[in-house]
């Protein structure tokens, strides 16, 4: 029976990790436990549950900064910011439902530990770009701080960057301080209907190269569009290419007009208003289209954006999958049909996907798969020798006894 450690404050957190370090007992680090099925399975008898480290430490809207305990639910952070007319500009996705967990259960620490960003990433940056400072406990049981609370800071190494996206394998964050930005007055979306993947990536690329301040660029092939909750998208009957515009009313009118002009002749056009736009981009953010496809393995690919359609074509030659493009082709979600039974089938798919990604430049994450498949196959992109050795040395420096989420990202890390 796994032992549950639930520290009530940063001091107890430090003691728990220090004791585990001394005893050489590995810990599975958990926030809201919504992403437990992401990454390689971690064999730990002890779960370090951070849910009691919860609450907003401070929020200063006019300084664009908020600080929260790591276990604070994302929903609490979102509501707090909304009351101040602001938001997390990087739009952290809620992958709970995709990974078989309830919706709305994520914590802010989990968002940063996994560097989770949404559609606006292409314009405004990722979670990693917004974290200003953190308090954390490394695998030696040492409590330390990195960064600060100000926008501009180059004092010492940017240790925050190492913690973001390290999946709890280097240190356990107890508090995060990050930059926030004003909510846009309005969001509208220009839709182009009926484009094939290559034409869609070309159209989205053109939109991002324009001066029309585009905040989102996604392509939903017909099958994906048909599962949308937004009526205009669901009933389109064909592929939907979506370009998002934000700002005050006059600016939106102007930019949507300019974009429509740009897309004229490429396909039928439509426009979504504020509420539909918010719903559509939330669906795209959370990969809602793949939630119902429970028997499919889901991959997340980050590739050279202009090569997005090529990558998918290469993969489709090897395995049957549904696809959703975000970041103008730079982010590809694949829901791969089981080509056979068990991990062997997934292994064949993995080879095809890694090969296509290597050709285009980028990386692939096995986002949703059975525990057996995740134990056998590399979940994260395998690294070249020099980077892998450096990764191992960094793990060693933070967590020499390998007690924090051991093996979650790579074997031995």
């Amino acid at each position: 029976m796994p032992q549950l450690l639930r520290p009530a404050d940063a001091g107890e957190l430090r003691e728990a990790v220090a004791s585990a370090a001394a005893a050489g007992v590995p810990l599975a680090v958990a926030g809201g436990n919504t992403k437990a099925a992401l990454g390689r399975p971690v064999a730990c008898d002890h779960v370090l549950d951070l849910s009691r480290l919860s609450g907003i430490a401070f929020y200063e809207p006019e300084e664009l900064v908020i600080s929260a305990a790591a276990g604070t639910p994302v929903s609490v952070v979102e509501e707090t910011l909304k009351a101040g007319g602001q938001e997390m500009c990087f739009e952290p996705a809620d992958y709970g439902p995709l990974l078989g967990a309830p919706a709305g259960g994520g914590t802010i620490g989990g968002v940063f530990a996994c560097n989770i960003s949404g559609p606006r990433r292409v314009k405004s940056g990722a979670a990693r770009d917004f974290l200003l400072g953190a308090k954390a406990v490394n695998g030696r049981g040492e409590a330390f701080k990195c960064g600060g609370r100000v926008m501009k800071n180059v004092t010492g190494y940017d240790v925050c960057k190492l913690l973001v996206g390290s999946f709890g394998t280097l240190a356990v964050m107890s508090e995060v301080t990050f930059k926030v930005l004003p909510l846009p007055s309005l969001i509208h979306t220009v839709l182009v209907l009926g484009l094939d993947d290559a034409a869609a990536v070309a159209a989205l690329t053109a939109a991002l190269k324009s001066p029309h301040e585009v905040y989102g660029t996604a392509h939903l092939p017909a099958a994906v569009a048909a599962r949308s909750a937004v009526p205009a998208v669901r009933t389109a009957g064909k592929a939907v290419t979506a370009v998002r515009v934000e700002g005050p009313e006059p600016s939106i009118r102007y930019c949507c007009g300019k974009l429509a002009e740009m897309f004229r002749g490429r396909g039928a056009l439509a426009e979504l208003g504020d509420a539909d736009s918010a719903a559509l981009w939330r669906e795209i953010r959370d990969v809602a289209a793949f939630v119902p496809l429970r028997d499919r393995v889901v991959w997340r690919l980050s590739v050279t954006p202009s090569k997005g359609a090529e990558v998918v074509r290469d993969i489709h030659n090897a395995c049957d999958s549904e696809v959703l493009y975000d970041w103008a082709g730079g982010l590809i979600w694949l829901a791969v049909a089981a080509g056979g039974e068990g991990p062997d089938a997934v292994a064949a798919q993995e080879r095809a996907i890694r090969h296509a990604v290597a050709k285009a430049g980028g990386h692939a994450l096995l986002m949703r798969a059975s525990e057996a498949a995740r134990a056998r196959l590399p979940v994260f992109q395998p690294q070249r020798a020099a980077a892998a050795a450096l990764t191992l040395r960094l793990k060693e420096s933070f967590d020499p006894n390998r007690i924090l989420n051991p093996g979650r990202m790579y074997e031995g890390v």
Partner: protein
Amino acid sequence: MRMPVPDPRVLARRHEIAAKLRAILPGDCVITDSDGMRVYETDALTAYRQMPMVVVLPRTTAEVSAVLALCREEGVKVVPRGAGTSLSGGALPLEDGVLLSLGKFNRILDIDFDNRCVTAQPGVTNLAITKAVEHAGFYYAPDPSSQIACSIGGNVAENSGGVHCLKYGLTTNNVLGLEVVLMNGETVRMGGKHLDAEGYDLMGVMTGSEGLLGVITEVTVRILRAPESVRAMLVGFSSVEAAGDCVAAVIAGGIIPAGLEMMDRAAVHAAEAFVHAGYPMDVEALLIVELDGPEAEVADMTARVRSVAGQSGAELVRISTSDAERLRFWAGRKAAFPAVARIAPDYYCMDGTIPRKRLSEVLRGIGELSKRYGLGVVNVFHAGDGNLHPLILYDANRPGDLERVESFGADILKLCVAVGGVLTGEHGVGVEKRDLMPVMFNEVDLRVQQRIKCAFDPESLLNPGKMFPELHRCAELGRMHVHGGRIPFPDIPRF
């Protein structure tokens, strides 16, 4: 300034080491004569000078790798150098060290508009990247004031900023990929044209590592489409407090200006006397607010800022009606440093960042310190992101002035930290603020950072003596520490 004690064994082998370097590099890429090395003895922090043992100018990644591998084998320290514009002494040579200049890495390798990025060698200047893409309506956003001279590799090493950081971020937010050679000669590629790291964000920690972790040999940066419309406003106030309130109100109102600068009375006067930008002389604080985006959005924001400025008690609001006028508004601010150089024999530029709301308090504190030290101060401020640049006026030829100015500067930075800010917003720690690191970080925080150094460079041969006040052996840092004399409990407590 205390630097690592030169290793007499290395100094004694100077000629032998130069000969070995000549065996892996062409003759003109290894400099040992003092005339040739003189230009490398200092960077833009000219108070510190040191001739290096040897200067090398490799031309390829393979040559950098060979130089580093050789130096590691020989136990020789290496100081990397871009354009030498560091304001914190980041490229200050070591007497027993090889100075590795990236000056020959001066080509742009790839311009990719579809993926909105440029790949360049590290010695390419910041401005050259914008120049290479502006014909297509693109630019590179971070714009440190030395952008005409500073190199993109140096920008990555220092995580350079500029006046547009609030909206467009620092260098770290605009780098997509790096090629880095480690001290052991291994080459590591980080990132690329795609977004986000596949594992640990090695690129993120390389950025701003001040040449202590690896030598950058290739950089891929994000380029942005130039905004359709840009407008600047000059807003004058009769008090610094009112100007600070206005900045807070603009941001609280949901507007993120592309640039938001503040100058105090002394800075306004110095700048106006120098470039005749048309600044009002009767204000205590002057804001430059730059707004960019689609035409309709800029018009909307301009009206809102004007109204907020009025509510904050602005004495004067001027809005640029042409690009020429907008550039004139900026001319004084951009020339602030040389303008200050005209009113004092020397000036020392500080670089703390503070939470913006503490501005008047900090400026008052600086005013008091100014009286106590008997040295004048001119303040320019990246008001949007809280990055303060007090310029302390002094005369290096007057005995005792340099010591006083350093002590004054340190007091300003301690004040910044005390109000919740940091020692440096964009100039780096280098040798300049190295000994102040414990003001901001405790022993554990520093150990965590130094162990990162050990993961990249276990013998501490790359740019030692910078950033950290004390050098520790990696073996010592690697040991597990027991806190407060207590032995961690043998069993895990339940909570």
